[in-house]
């Protein structure tokens, strides 16, 4: 079997010039989308339109922090999108957790859970930055540089294992057999981590000021 490749030529061109975006706004980044869509910055001139359902979409925008609860829905939506599909991580929260670096319920690095093609750093990125990333995405798709969905399919075990560490993947995966198997595999590790993580500890006032970067 030959290795699947990203579309090039006229297919790639059409793919890039007609990106339909899944309107899945998770965090505060959603507020940057209306100016990008409407008359001030108008992203429809690149052929990018918001779509209502994952079945019709090519581009998944993760606009901001992802709680575990939202991650479940994002994974499900991502798996329902038809190939080829692209993901843009939007804002600092998707890069390293941003201001939610010590939250008990928010993931830090998005590309451990689903393959990310582009990150836009910033808190929040301006619409200019969003338009810039869109033009880069269009250029890259035309040249066949973005292949997130192929990475996801080839390393499905890696991604599923990461997802299983933080959420119950059995309910939220399309491939239920694989999800069941990996879920059973990680149970032991999960339990160990859980025991380590839930040791009662009360912070003193002096301790509350973090020194340097979080561990």
């Amino acid at each position, binding site marked *: 079997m030959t290795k699947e490749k990203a579309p090039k030529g006229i297919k790639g061109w059409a793919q890039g010039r007609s990106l339909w975006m899944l309107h899945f706004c998770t965090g505060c980044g959603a507020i940057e989308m209306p100016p990008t869509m409407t008359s001030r910055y108008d992203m429809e001139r690149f052929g990018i339109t918001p779509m209502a359902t994952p079945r019709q979409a090519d581009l998944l925008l993760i606009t901001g922090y992802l709680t*575990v*609860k939202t991650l*479940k829905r994002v994974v499900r939506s991502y798996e329902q999108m038809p190939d080829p599909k692209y993901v843009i*991580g939007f804002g600092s929260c998707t890069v390293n*957790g941003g201001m939610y*670096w*010590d*939250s*008990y*319920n*928010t*993931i*830090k*690095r998005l*590309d*451990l859970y689903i*393959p*990310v*093609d*582009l*990150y836009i750093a910033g808190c929040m990125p301006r619409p200019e930055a969003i338009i810039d*990333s869109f033009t*880069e995405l269009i250029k*890259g798709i035309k040249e066949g*540089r*973005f292949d997130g969905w192929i*990475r996801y399919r080839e*390393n499905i075990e*890696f991604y599923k294992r*990461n997802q299983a*560490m*933080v*959420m*119950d993947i059995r309910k939220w995966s399309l491939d239920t057999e694989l999800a069941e198997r990996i879920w059973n595999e990680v149970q032991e590790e999960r339990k160990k*981590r*859980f025991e*380590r*993580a*839930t*040791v*009662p*500890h*009360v*912070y003193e006032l002096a301790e509350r000021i973090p020194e340097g970067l*979080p*561990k």
Partner: protein
Amino acid sequence: MSLEKEQKVVELVKASFEDAEAEVQRERRVKVWVKPNRVFPLVAYLKGHGFNHFVAISAVDWIKDGEIELVYHLWSYSEKVHVMIKTRIPRDNGSMPTLKPLFNQAETYERDIHEFFGVYFEGNEKLDREFILEDWDGPPPMRKDFDTRLFSAEFYDQEDLESEALRLKIQPYKGHLRK
């Protein structure tokens, strides 16, 4: 600035509840401290006197005292006064009677506090149902002895996975970095 209407509310509380401590915090704010078993009658009493907007229930974890403070917020549209009824219950196995017979919306706030602080509300039938936290089997996360930083580091840092990702070359596209 006169605080007449606030004083009136304080007197109203003291007239029927001698064991309650009430004071005016500032304009349009009245604080009342009562024993846990007196909360229900006090709310019912205030409801009968025009305090018909039940705003919320909030909770504070006083870990050194071993107590959880519950704050019931009531608002009167006619008087324009906000009454905070504060009560303290023990941290371990503490329970409160539900306010559902008085205000239906109390049910939701009680479920919220049950999930995040582990307080049990007697008579609330929906308490055992999942509310906000999905598939959560750890300790209540808003308690002060829950180490959220440790939990986050254990579950979401995943440094070993990051090195694994490097080995598998699972990296986002980097060509866009400005020279």
